């Protein structure tokens, strides 16, 4: 299968007063065309930075980048800002986490939604508004004509996220980055938005990168999963394979910490003690070793490389689950 997006050996460092902050460390990710790939990890694991860098959205003199990003035959890392921007909308698009702040509060929905259509597709104002109305209907917003004339504050969080999705799919992108699209929403609305994304992906033949901290969200909505920890990919596998046969203790701990509705009430939740290591000082061994219940001496001293099972399952662990210790 050919890759729509291929990220190779990407590293992102930010210069900060406390020293160089390693946000992303040597990440390789392939997004095969027509698939949905989940990127899972805790806050601060580098998932958002990785996505933004893949889209060329990280600017500023304090950012140091290395590695290559190839999207649909274009090497983004060798292109100018203007050339990359031409790929936005019809090539790739992004849905941001917080629908409350991602929309411009002083512009009507219609004007924000038709902007891309006019700039990218050269539509007239009237045509763009007519298409905007269709797009709102496509994302199942009732009473689309009235919503076009509303301001973001007049809509609920779920409605705003639908508008964000309408903006993102307006120019038929090949790849949609969804950065925690449901984290700020209620469970009922989350389920609706995830269902909507599944249907749109099918209808528009779109690939998707779904960034989330919740393995539960990933389970029913992706074909592949990359688990990130402290700026690195620590496990990568097809979704079904990952859940059936986890190799990385971190992935297991993350799954165990989700409260489940079929547990007996009052069951104590298993948790991952401690927190992510200091991003300016990653230490020598495995980044997860201080929080890992299986950690041994070697884990604290030597940094594990990504290992590959014969079936392509990748993991970064000296003592993976399922192997004799």
């Amino acid at each position, binding site marked *: 299968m050919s890759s729509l997006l291929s990220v190779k050996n990407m590293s992102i460092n930010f210069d900060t007063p406390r020293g160089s902050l390693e946000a992303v460390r040597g990440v390789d990710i392939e997004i095969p065309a027509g698939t949905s790939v989940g990127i899972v990890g805790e806050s601060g694991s580098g998932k958002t930075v990785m996505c933004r860098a893949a889209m060329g959205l990280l600017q500023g003199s304090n950012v140091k980048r290395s590695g290559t990003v190839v999207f649909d035959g274009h090497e983004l890392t060798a292109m100018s800002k203007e050339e990359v921007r031409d790929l936005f909308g019809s090539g790739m698009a992004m849905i941001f986490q917080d629908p409350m702040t991602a929309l411009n509060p002083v512009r009507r929905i219609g004007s924000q939604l038709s902007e891309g259509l006019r700039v990218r597709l050269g539509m007239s104002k009237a045509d763009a508004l007519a298409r905007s109305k269709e797009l709102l209907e496509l994302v199942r917003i009732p009473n689309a004509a009235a919503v076009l004339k509303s301001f973001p504050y007049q809509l609920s969080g779920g409605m705003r996220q639908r508008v964000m999705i309408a903006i993102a799919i307006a120019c038929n992108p090949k790849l949609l980055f969804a950065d925690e699209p449901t984290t700020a929403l*209620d469970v009922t609305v989350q389920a609706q938005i995830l269902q909507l994304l599944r249907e749109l992906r099918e209808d528009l033949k779109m690939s998707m990168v779904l960034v989330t901290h919740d393995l539960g969200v990933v389970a029913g909505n992706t074909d592949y999963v990359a688990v990130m920890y402290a700026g690195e990919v620590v496990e990568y596998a097809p979704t079904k394979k990952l859940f059936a046969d986890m190799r990385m203790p971190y992935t297991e701990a993350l799954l165990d910490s989700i409260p489940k509705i079929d547990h007996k*009430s009052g069951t104590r939740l298993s948790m991952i003690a401690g927190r992510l290591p200091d991003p300016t000082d990653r230490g020598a061994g495995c980044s997860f070793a201080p929080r890992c219940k299986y950690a041994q001496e070697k884990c604290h001293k030597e940094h594990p490389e990504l290992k590959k099972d014969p079936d392509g399952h990748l993991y970064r662990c000296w003592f993976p689950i399922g192997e004799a210790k």
Partner: protein
Amino acid sequence: MAGSGTAHMRNTVDAVLTVRDLTVEFRVAKDKIVKAVSGLSFDVIKGETLAIVGESGCGKTTLARAVLQLPPPNSGEVVFDKTDLTLLPKENLRSARTSMQMIFQDPISSLDPRMTVHQLIDEPLEIWDRGTRAERDERINNLLNNVGLEPELVLNRRSYEFSGGQCQRISIARALALDPRMLICDEPVSALDVSIQAQILNLLQDMKDRFGLTMIFISHDLAVVKAVSNRVMVMYLGKICEVATPDTLYSKPAHHYTKALLNSVPIADPTRQRKTELLQGEPPSPMNPPSGCRFRTRCAAASALCAEQEPQLREVTPGQFVACHHPIV
């Protein structure tokens, strides 16, 4: 409505909090009234955790705040420790509130960014003049140790230097400072990562056991609620749908709304994904709630009766109360 009624009230002497017929309404324009909470009753027994579950806008936060008289409800009574808070003069209310504390949803913005952790936790102790300087400092150290923070490392730092999970630990220490009898937690883990969520939920459980607290736990996530509660009350548009113990509620939901909520929780297993219909749309406006059962506009089982008559809470199985004309059996 999802309904009224008092069948679920236990009327025991062990009740720490008894709320009867509570109504909260906000006038937002000349002739527009938001009916946030409509004639709602419930009780919480000593040592129990009551979870209040529902979507955004169903009135769960308003309800919790009305218990604390922030602001006072339009009508109804709130009996805490045999005293009706709605009748208390301001000064007595202030001292009554020391024994009921609240933990808020957003841990970072609910702490004053200009105060150090020491000042944050000392503030309630100072206001109520609890002990000498040295006694208060010892108390602050104990509280921080209890919530799993190292006093020496955190005392002189400010909230922006901490992660969301750590800020929530500080909020918990602050809430416990005055030895409350009841803790009201308003979505205490919604803003946190799953891994940190588990830490905070376990901590709340520990604090409850150690200090013999009674808790009200508000959340929109049924999975989170199951881990911590003894009794669950499902709310919709200012009314109660169902009240039951978590194990009953989750295995045999009797209200169609409870079932819909359960069906929305993502399953962390790609081989067991549901094929059921999702709850569509969003709740109607609380300014103009539907007649009869308030849930009927989104309910697959709704009949003409649901539009005409408001269902009353009734017991369907022992300990399980539902306000529905056509409960799931």
